[in-house]
C-alpha cells in the first residue's frame, strides 16, 4: 500500500540516484531530472488529451441519446488514436495571404503555457514536478499566457473569421481572468500560503469547497470561459465564425491547438481539485488515484456543462463577467477576510 502510494516518488528518487552514481555533478543531475519531468509531463498531456477527446465524444453521445464513436476497437476506444494518425499525415495548408512566421509560431507556442502549468500541479503526495513557493501565483501567470498564441494564430491567418475569433478570445479571457484570480484569493486568505502542496495539506479536515462555495462557483464559471468552452465558446462559434481562430489551420498545426485545448481543460480541472476539492487526499486508495478520480469527475462535469447550455451572446458574456462576477468575487474576498480575522482573533477588538 505504502509502496503503491509512493511508487512515482521512488522512481524519481531512483533516477536521481542513478544519475548521481554515474558521476554527474549536482547541477547536471538537476538538469537530467528536468528532462525526466519534461518527458513525463508531455506524456501526461498527450495521454490526457487522447483519452478526454474520446471521453467527451462518448459522453456527448450519451447526453444526446446516441452511441458516439463505437466502430474502431472495443466500443470505439481506438478512435482518437486513428484520428491522431490521420491528423499527422494530413496536408498542411498555409494561405498565401497569411503572415507566415506568426502563423507557424502560434501552434509551437500554444503548448508552452500548458506544460509550464502542469509542472506545479501536485498529482499525489510529493508528486509535483516542482513545488514552487509561488504555486498558485505562478499558475495564474502561466495560464494567462495562452492568450498570446491564440491571438498570434488569429492575426497571422489574415482571415476575418480568425481575427474576430481572436479578438473575442482575448476580450473574454482577460475579462474572466479577474473573477478567476479573486476566487483563488479567498483560499489563499484562509491558508496563508501560495504553495499548492500546502493548500492540499490544509484541506485534510475540510475541503475548501465547503468553506468557499461562492468562490468555487465563480471558479467553475470563469474556468469554463478561460478555456473557451460552451456556453462561452464565442471565439470559435461554428455557426457564426466557421471555426474562429482555427479557420486557417489544418493538419498537425490544428491538432496542436486542439491538444492544448483539452490539456488546458485538464489543468483547470486539476487546479479545481487541488484548491477546492481536497487535492490528492482520500482514504484507502493511493493519493494519485484519488487525484485522477476527482479530476476525471470535474472534467466530466465540464463536459456536462458544455453539452447542456446554449452559447451566450457577446454582450451578455461581457456584462455577466464585469457586472456580476467581478463584484461578486470582490465581495467574496472581503467577507472571507473578515471571517478569517474573526476566526483567529474573536469578536473582541
Amino acid at each position, binding site marked *: 500500500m505504502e509502496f503503491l502510494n509512493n511508487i512515482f516518488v521512488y522512481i524519481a528518487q531512483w533516477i536521481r540516484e542513478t544519475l548521481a552514481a554515474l558521476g554527474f555533478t549536482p547541477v547536471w543531475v*538537476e*538538469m537530467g531530472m*528536468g528532462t525526466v*519531468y519534461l518527458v513525463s509531463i*508531455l506524456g501526461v498531456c498527450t495521454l490526457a488529451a487522447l483519452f478526454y477527446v474520446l471521453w467527451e465524444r462518448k459522453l456527448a453521445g450519451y447526453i444526446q441519446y446516441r452511441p458516439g464513436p463505437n466502430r474502431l476497437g472495443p466500443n470505439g476506444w481506438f478512435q482518437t488514436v486513428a484520428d491522431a494518425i490521420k*491528423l*499527422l*499525415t494530413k*496536408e*498542411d*495548408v498555409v*494561405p*498565401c*495571404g*497569411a503572415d507566415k512566421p506568426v502563423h*507557424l509560431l502560434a*501552434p*509551437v*507556442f500554444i*503548448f*508552452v503555457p500548458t*506544460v*509550464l502549468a502542469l*509542472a506545479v500541479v501536485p498529482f499525489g503526495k510529493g508528486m509535483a*514536478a*516542482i513545488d*514552487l513557493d509561488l504555486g498558485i501565483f505562478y499558475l495564474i501567470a502561466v495560464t494567462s499566457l495562452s492568450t498570446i498564441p491564440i491571438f498570434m494564430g488569429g*492575426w497571422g*491567418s489574415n*482571415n476575418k*473569421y480568425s*481575427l474576430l475569433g481572436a*479578438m473575442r478570445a*482575448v*476580450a473574454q479571457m*482577460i*475579462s474572466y*481572468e*479577474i473573477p478567476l*484570480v479573486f476566487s483563488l*484569493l479567498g483560499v*489563499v*486568505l484562509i491558508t*496563508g500560503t*501560495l504553495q499548492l502542496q500546502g493548500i492540499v495539506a490544509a484541506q485534510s479536515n475540510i475541503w475548501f469547497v465547503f468553506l468557499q462555495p461562492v468562490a468555487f462557483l465563480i471558479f467553475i464559471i470563469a474556468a469554463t470561459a478561460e478555456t473557451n468552452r460552451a456556453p462561452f465558446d464565442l471565439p470559435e462559434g461554428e455557426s457564426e465564425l466557421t471555426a474562429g481562430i482555427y479557420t*486557417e489551420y489544418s*493538419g*498537425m498545426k490544428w*491538432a*496542436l491547438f486542439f491538444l492544448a485545448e483539452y490539456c488546458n481543460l485538464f489543468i483547470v480541472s486539476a487546479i479545481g481539485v487541488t484548491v477546492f476539492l481536497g487535492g490528492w487526499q482520500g482514504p484507502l486508495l493511493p493519493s494519485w488515484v484519488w487525484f485522477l478520480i476527482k479530476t476525471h469527475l470535474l472534467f466530466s462535469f465540464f463536459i456536462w456543462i458544455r453539452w447542456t447550455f446554449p452559447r451566450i451572446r457577446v454582450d451578455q458574456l*461581457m456584462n455577466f463577467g*464585469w*457586472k456580476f462576477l467581478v*463584484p461578486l468575487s470582490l465581495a467574496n*474576498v*472581503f467577507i472571507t*477576510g473578515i471571517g*478569517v*480575522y474573526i476566526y*483567529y482573533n474573536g469578536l473582541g477588538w
Partner: protein
Amino acid sequence: MLTQYSIVGILFLGAMAFGAFTIVLSRILQSHRPYPEKLETYECGMETQGTAWVQFKTSYFLYALVFLIFDIETIFLYPFAVKFQSLGLFAIVEMFIFFIILIIGFWYAWKEGALEWQ
C-alpha cells in the same frame, strides 16, 4: 530555488521543441500538393475582399484598461493575502481602505460606460 526555475526554463524550451518536432514530423509524413485556389483565404467560397488586418473596436481597449488596473491590483493582493493572518487588525483596515478605493474606480468606470458593450 534557482534550480527550480531552471527546470521551468527546461520545460519552456522542451514544450516549444515538442510543438516544432510534431510539425516537422507531419511535414515529412504528409503529401504536399498546393495549387492557387487551395491557398486562398477561406471565406466560405466567396472571393476575399481586402485584408483582415483592420483597426480594433474601441470597446476592447476600454476593457483592456480596466483589466490592467485589476490585474495590477491582484499583484498587490496576493502577498497581502499570504501575510493576512499575522497582520491582524491592521490588515483588515488596510483591506477596507484598499477595496473602497478600488470600488470607487470600478464604479466610475461603470458609470462612464466603459463596461457597456456597444
